[in-house]
């Protein structure tokens, strides 16, 4: 699966703090991503598939818990549930 940022999401970010604030234009409450969540957001670009995203995270982070893959999959599902990301494949149809 290849994901892209939803076109209905406004985004403000700061590299210095590693933080991004997101607001879906149909929502009334922004959310904030920091740390690994922000790193995942950066890697969602409409070109990388989930395996690419996971591979980059495994290269960047030291996963002592062994939970990285499952947690990334869950986090992507959560982003989709909140309509912050959408399938790049479907968007291109």
């Amino acid at each position, binding site marked *: 699966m290849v994901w892209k940022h939803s076109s209905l999401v406004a985004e403000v970010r700061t590299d210095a703090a590693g933080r991004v604030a997101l607001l879906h234009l149909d929502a009334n409450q*922004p959310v904030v991503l920091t740390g*690994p969540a922000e790193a995942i957001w950066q890697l969602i670009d409409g070109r990388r598939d989930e395996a690419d995203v996971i591979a980059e995270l495994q290269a960047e*982070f030291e996963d002592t818990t062994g939970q990285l893959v499952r947690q990334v999959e869950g986090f992507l599902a959560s982003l989709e549930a909140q309509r912050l990301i959408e399938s790049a494949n479907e968007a291109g149809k």
Partner: protein
Amino acid sequence: MSEVISADFTTREDAGISRRRVVAGVAWSLPVIVAAVAAPAAAASGVSVTAGLVGAGSPVTYLPSGGTGGGTNRNGTGPTALQLQNKGGAVNSPITGTINIAPVGTVGAGAGVQSMTPAALASSSYSTTHAYSGSFTYTAGVASGQTLNIPIQLQYESVNPSPKKGVVLSYTLTITVTLPDATTQALTAGLTVTF
């Protein structure tokens, strides 16, 4: 797009990887979505998880509290798993809970929980009246739409002298599950152990 939103936040102008990404070896931690303003927790998190006990009254094996090799396994009845059914968005924050197993009447040994893998068990102990208490933490997340069964391995309290052979002791298990939005769900089931 180059609108300055505040002194700290500017709009994103590039889609590349940040400078931070050239440094490897940062410890991984659970990625979470954080609500930016105060709001009712349930609405902010979208948590919609229903907890339940699977197989209450099923034949199960009780391990000795001293661990494998520390005594003979006992037969009995009880639930086989804690079930978390997620009907909402993915849950990525820890789910915690407490476990209490109260004897029915006066008993000579208690019943407890040996493990709940992949949840981490902690603070397991027996009181002088053989009541068991413990807690657990589950951190691996529950995907949207997922029904997760966490197996419950039960144990009996190794005591000396042990209850007479063939005696059947009864207990009441209560598991209180706390979800990431701070809501709780209490589950109960009966247990029996044949010594």
